[in-house]
Every structure is written in structure tokens, then in C-alpha cells.
């Protein structure tokens, strides 16, 4: 049965349901999902690029799987993420601010989280609120921590979430790729470059991301 539930920017409410519980399914290889609806990967690249170019503060959150050079593949992904960020910086217009904020580990760092320089999966909303982030992409975050964060973000902020997942994707993101690789990250960068100048950014003050 196809679910009528849609994974949309919040704030949904304090404890939003897990999208999986609402019937949202994960994409098959070669597919992605947009707002909980399975879509061809092609379309997802376009949509992700558009969301990044529209956002006032488009942000990439690399996680421990790419921040730490566990192996050659991780280091290559880190290089691709830096490339994506550089492209994003080049392609946004004055008034937009691309950011690259790390999630170095998953410890619940109370009370010391510095939202200017890092994001923590146990209270990701602090970093999003502080930096007024209205579109973000998770990459290199272990799935269980990504799910936790994505749900908190959907519950308490109006931020659009993208997951570049190396496994099967994330229902709780508004847009999710699966089987993330260096090639896919580079392809997203290319799409952003291609769409540069064709997307109207939301330059008015970003919708308050705090839940009222």
C-alpha cells in the first residue's frame, strides 16, 4: 500500500513519527526518494541541487565515516565532499552562505557543544538554529545516528534534509540517495554547477527554524 504520508520540512512536532512507521519505503538501487516518494536518481540529483541553490544557508554535514581517514575510500570521499562544498560556494549568490560543518563523533556532548563549529546527532537542532541553516545534507554518518538526527531536525526545525547514504537510504530525510559513492557526490556537484543561475534563491530571511 502506498503511504499518503509525506516527509516534509518541519517543524512537525516535538516527537515526529519515524517515516518508516508511516509507511515510507526505502528506494531500490538506482532510485532515490523525494519527500517519501520513490523517484529516479536523476530526478533526485536535480531536486537536491535545486534545494541547495534555493537555500539561504545550504550546509553539508560530513560525519565520522568520512571525517576520519579510516581507509583510502573514506579519504577519497572526503576529497569529493570538499569538491562539492567548493562548487556550492562558487554557485551560490551573494546573500547565500554555504557551510561545511563536521559531526566528528556521536557523544552526547553536554553542555559543551559549540554550534558554530560542529553538529551533534543528539541535538542537531542547536547547530541548525544557531546558523539558520535551511537546507542540509548528511554524508558519512552511521545510519542509526543519521535517523536520530533527521527525526529531531524534522521535529523541531524547518530545515530541508538530504541524506547521501552509503547504505539503503533514509526515510526520515526529505530527499535520500542510497549507495553513496565518490561518483555520486561528484555528480551532485556537477548538477549544482549545471543549474547555477537557473534557480531563484530564497533571499528573504530564512523562515525561522525554531519551532514556535
Amino acid at each position, binding site marked *: 500500500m502506498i503511504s499518503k504520508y509525506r516527509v516534509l520540512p518541519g517543524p512537525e512536532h516535538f516527537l515526529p513519527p519515524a517515516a518508516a512507521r508511516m509507511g515510507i519505503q526505502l528506494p531500490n538501487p538506482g532510485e532515490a526518494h523525494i519527500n517519501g516518494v520513490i523517484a529516479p536518481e536523476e530526478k533526485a540529483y536535480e531536486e537536491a541541487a535545486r534545494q541547495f541553490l534555493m537555500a539561504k544557508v545550504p550546509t553539508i554535514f560530513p560525519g565520522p565515516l568520512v571525517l*576520519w*581517514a579510516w581507509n583510502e575510500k573514506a579519504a577519497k570521499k*572526503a*576529497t569529493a*565532499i570538499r569538491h562539492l562544498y567548493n562548487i556550492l560556494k562558487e554557485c551560490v549568490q551573494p546573500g547565500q552562505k554555504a557551510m561545511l560543518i*563536521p559531526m*566528528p563523533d556521536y*557523544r552526547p556532548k553536554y*553542555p*559543551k557543544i559549540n554550534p558554530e563549529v560542529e553538529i551533534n546527532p543528539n541535538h542537531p537542532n542547536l547547530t541548525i538554529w544557531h546558523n539558520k541553516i535551511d537546507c542540509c545534507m548528511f554524508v558519512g554518518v552511521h545510519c542509526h545516528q543519521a535517523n536520530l538526527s533527521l527525526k529531531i531536525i524534522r521535529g523541531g526545525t524547518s530545515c530541508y534534509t538530504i541524506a547521501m547514504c552509503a547504505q539503503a537510504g533514509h526515510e526520515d530525510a526529505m530527499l535520500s540517495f542510497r549507495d553513496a559513492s565518490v561518483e555520486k557526490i561528484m555528480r551532485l556537484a556537477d548538477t549544482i554547477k549545471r543549474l547555477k543561475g537557473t534557480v531563484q534563491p530564497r533571499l528573504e530571511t530564512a523562515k525561522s527554524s525554531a519551532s514556535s
Partner: protein
Amino acid sequence: MSKERIQISEDLYDIMPSDYQDLVKSATYGKEDRGWKDIGSSKELIEQHSLCAGCPESMAFRYILASLPNPEDTVMVGSTGCTSLVFPMVAVHNIHSLFGNQNAIASGLKRALSVRFPGRVKDVVVLAGDGATVDIGLDMTLQAWFRQEKFTTICFDNELYANTGGQESGLMQKGFVAKMAPVGKLFDKVRLPEIARESGCHYVVNCTVSKPSLVEKVIRNAVHVAREIGPTYLQLYTPCILEIGKNSMEGLQEMRDSEKPTERFAYKEYVSEPAKQLLAELAAKDKERKAAAKQLASQASA
């Protein structure tokens, strides 16, 4: 494992918070003779914590983390209490257990690690307060010792339940009146070091944390003995200055006062015969290594 295995990806290095950069650049992972003297000249494995100003427990944490012989391959198991406020700021693998369960968790963990990593030394260190070790978790504590589980149990003894307002604990001294124990303790402090010895611990020490060099020595001994022979137990006095009515500056003096020869934290040590032999061997090897290094240095300078 050495610190070479945990490098930050070059392309994302600049965005990492400075505490992580420092951990990679100047922490003492992999250093053979790491110890409390590294404090101040290298990155400590504890970041800012949320303990009270002047809390002796924070001193104990710093000395212990500086002294663990193998931090990159150590897993610490904590329990509910003030220590659990600190573990999120500690750059050593750690697990938070249910209140009192710490020694049971550590038993399973140690066994699993030896199956999963048969060729590698993996140390397990339990660090919990007196409530978790002696009251709520006494069963788990003792059973782990009876089974001769090869890990170290450290008890931060502040002689009451500090972070819930000062209730009576088994390790509280007789007659002590706390905020939530107004009648005063009616019976003696549980003699856990003696119980540990009788329960099969091979290395037992009861002391305060006023002297960093002493803490370093007992931590290294306890971990080495646990690694090779069997369970070890350290009971360290870390007074709760708030609950005993002291000021932030007075924690150190309180420990010094409590370690005098007639006091309850006078240094007490028990070492089993196999542990004595092991420690003697380690000391001899250490001496040999230092002499060789000295000789090498003098040759290089000549």
C-alpha cells in the same frame, strides 16, 4: 593500534574542531611510558567536563586517563553517578551501563574482545562510584571477582550518593551525617578492599588521589595485573566537597588529611604472589628498556 590509524581526512582537516585536531596531533596514544607528567605538554584525553569546580574526581579522571597504559585499546565501563557526566568528554572508548551493572557488562565485554581480537591486547577498566560498586552493584562486582574476570575495577569513593543530594552509602564512614541522611551512619564503612582480596582480586589498593605519581603507579599495576592474571580493584577517595561542606579549594587538603596513617584512606595495598612476580618482571623490563634508551641517547650525542 597506534595513533597513526586514526588520522583526520586531509581534505576536511580544517573544519574539524580544534580539540579533535589536538587529539591527533599531540595526544599520547601509543606512547609507551605515558603518565601524569604528560599533562600540560600534550593533549589530555579528557575535554572540559561538567563536574563542580575543584572536584577531586576531575583530578582523578585526569590522572587515570594520563596513566592508562594502552588507551587506544582500552574500553572503560561507567555507571550512573557523577562519573557519567564526564564520560562524554573522554577520548577513550566507553560504555555507560545500567546502575550497578558495570562489572557484568565488563565481563561480557572483556570476553567478547578476546574472541574478536585474539592477537591484540584489549584492556577493560570499570570506573564507577561507591553506590554503583558497593551498594546497588555489589552482586555484580563480587561475582566478576569470583569468576576471575580479567579487568580492573576502580571505585571513586566519595562516601555517599553525591549527585542525588547526599544519601547514605555503604562506604560512608560511621557516624557521618549527610544532607539526606540526618540520623548519621549507624554502622561501619564496608571494608571492600578486604572483601576484594578475599574474593580473588590479585591487586588491591585503597588510597586517595592527592599524589598523581601514586595514582599513575597503581593504575598501571592494576591494568597490567588484570591483563595477565586476574581481577584487580582500586578504591580511590574522591571526596564530594559540596556534600562534606568544603570549598572548591579544599578538596586536596581533605584527601591529604584522610590519608594519614591512622585515617581511613591510609595507603593499603595487597598484591597476590603471581601479581608480585609479574610486576617484578615488568619493572625489570622497564629498567632494561630505559637503560638501553639512555645508552642510545648517549651514543647519539657522542
